[in-house]
């Protein structure tokens, strides 16, 4: 099996009197959801492989409060936010990277007013930075020439205007990037945002994730790329619903890079 992952905690760094280059905010999905954990590990493998000095909060990490806030529970959100900010500030965290666009958006945009000021980047933005600095090399590999469509997570795209970092990484993998009919600013939601992930949908004609999966399948992809653990779950369920799971994988951009490197 693969090498043991090296995942230091902020507490161990503090004990040694060190500061990591970046804090990796794993998020609840990345910590507990079986599918999302694979994304977390793929990201860590890349960081380990090129020797990025990072640490996690581990058992000191707690939900950012995003689902509570979008559900309308501002109290619970601010409780979570202030608890997290206390921990982050105690460790004097400067830079945060996360593989979850919801955590990314909340920490980046909603924490500053409550006293949490950090340089927050999405993992695709972080990898793009590493690429630009020459620390990360990406070459075609397994996905070279494959038809791939990328699903924009709402909280990375429209919410924060980041459309290019994930696409740039995919281009580096030399995939044939096919856009869905609604993409980028007009990208269609997977159906999980706004705390919908944690409840049944209201009555309608169909589920949002099925609708979005149909749009993805129209591009006749060999794989669907995503950048959010929730989108990943929704699209994976959609592909299963269409009985295409044997032909079409739903993969996070970071998993595709790790696969290409054979990590």
């Amino acid at each position, binding site marked *: 099996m693969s090498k043991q992952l090296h*995942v230091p905690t902020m507490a161990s760094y503090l004990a040694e009197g060190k500061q990591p280059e970046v804090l990796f905010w*794993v998020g*609840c999905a*990345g*910590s*507990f959801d079986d599918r999302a*954990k694979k994304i977390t590990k793929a990201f860590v493998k890349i960081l380990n492989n090129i020797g990025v000095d990072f640490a*996690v909060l*581990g*058992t000191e*990490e*707690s*939900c950012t*409060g995003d*689902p*509570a*806030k*979008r*559900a*309308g*529970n*501002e*109290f*619970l959100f*601010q*409780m*979570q936010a*202030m*608890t997290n900010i206390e921990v982050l500030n105690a460790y004097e965290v400067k830079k945060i990277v996360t593989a979850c666009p919801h955590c990314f*958006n909340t920490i*980046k*945009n*909603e924490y500053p*007013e*409550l006293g949490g000021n950090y340089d927050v980047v999405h993992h695709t933005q972080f990898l793009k930075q590493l690429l630009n600095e020459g620390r990360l090399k990406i070459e075609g590999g397994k996905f070279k020439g494959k038809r791939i469509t990328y699903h924009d997570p*709402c909280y990375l795209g*429209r*919410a*924060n205007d980041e459309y290019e970092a994930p696409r740039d990484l995919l281009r580096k993998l030399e995939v044939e990037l096919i856009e869905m009919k*609604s993409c980028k600013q*007009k990208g*269609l*939601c997977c*159906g*999980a*945002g*706004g*705390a919908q992930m*944690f*409840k*049944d*949908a*209201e*009555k*309608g004609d*169909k589920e*949002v994730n*099925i*609708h*979005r999966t149909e749009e993805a399948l129209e591009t006749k992809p060999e794989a669907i790329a995503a950048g959010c653990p929730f989108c990943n779950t929704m699209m994976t369920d959609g592909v299963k619903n269409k009985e295409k799971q044997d032909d079409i994988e739903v993969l996070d951009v970071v998993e595709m890079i790790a696969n290409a490197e054979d990590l």
Partner: protein
Amino acid sequence: MMQFLPQILFVAVFAFAVYFFVRNVKRLKRNVNLGKDVNRSDQKKKRLNKMLRVALGQSKMVTKPIAGALHVIVYVGFVIINIEVLEIILDGILGTHRLFSFLGPVYDFLIGSFEVLALLVLLSVIIFWIRRNLMNIKRFLSKELKGWPKNDANYILYFEVVLMLLFLTMNAADYQLQLSGAKHYASEAGIMGAFPISQYLLPVLDGLSTSTLIVVERAAWWLHIIGILFFLNYLYYSKHLHILLAFPNVYFSNLNPKGEFRNLESVTSEVKMMMDPNADPFAEPAEGEDEIPEKFGASDVTDLSWFQLLSSYTCTECGRCTAECPANQTGKKLSPRKIMMDTRDRLESIGESLNKNSDHQPENDDKKLLDGYISREELWACTTCNACVEACPVGIDPLSIIMDMRQYLVMEESAAPAELNNAMTNIENNAAPWPYNQQDRLNWVNES
């Protein structure tokens, strides 16, 4: 005295139209100010730029190329033809004829381009009518457009057709009168104006006597200007206020990242107190501090901000938001356009009560925004994806209203769907929306 009668009549009509318009603007302002305060007067330069780009420059209209191009024609036509309306108003007050004709060739060019624009507007409006009524475009067929909103939209189109036809008829009769050297119309300097479009109407007027032509010209002139003044006052009662309010609405619109939802200050102070180990929970409130806790979230329009209320008047019900909404696309009840229409309808109902009795208390009304206009089912169907906000060509944010109302439901009524309550309980107890132990957050490292 008799010779001044038309001028006196015109001034009276014009003054009445202006009076009525100002009265409605005051009512609109009063209603918008029922909203809570929100600071949107920062970053003036950025706001001005956005207004120039999005409202004046129509940058978001053209994301739908066909509707966008047609809209630009009607918009440019509307703005430019208003130069002609200025001349018409001055002619009406002063009793002159084609006051600006001293501009010579420039005048000819202006009148000529107004005519071309009038024709283009006419054609665009006809295509708009076909799109709206015959082409089965989904966003024009939604439930919330049944009845008045659909009629309102069509009335505006009919109105524009009539106005453009009157304008061209007026010019054609005028041109014919100038050609025949009629007194008060013809000038020694030659033909005033250029008539590239209305010249083709001359055969229709062929054989009419000078006096009949004058009747036609005057009738068209009067109907045209009365029509415009009527239209100006129709705005307040229609979806068409956007021609004025698009500008302030874009100016005051949100400049922050769309994903940034406002943090409630009232909650911040309470949470800080709860988390402060030294705070005395039984302490008397500090002097000057409100003893009645502020209401969290919105159950009625008076709980929304003045910007959200301004937006409800700005909305022209184009439905681009609803067309992009994932919940709406999959058959849920939610329609962001309806959220805006409901907000305005409720605000107008309060406005009407205030017109009758300035002491009216909206909180005593039976039918409020929540449940009376917007159902809980609509609010809970939103994925907060911001597609509606992105789609709006005039900077309206229906999502912010949905969020404010969810806050009321959860924080004032504890009325979240049961599964959401479970998720929130989990977050409270074990710091994740699922029932996992916080101490297990790092277990993934050692799992194969």
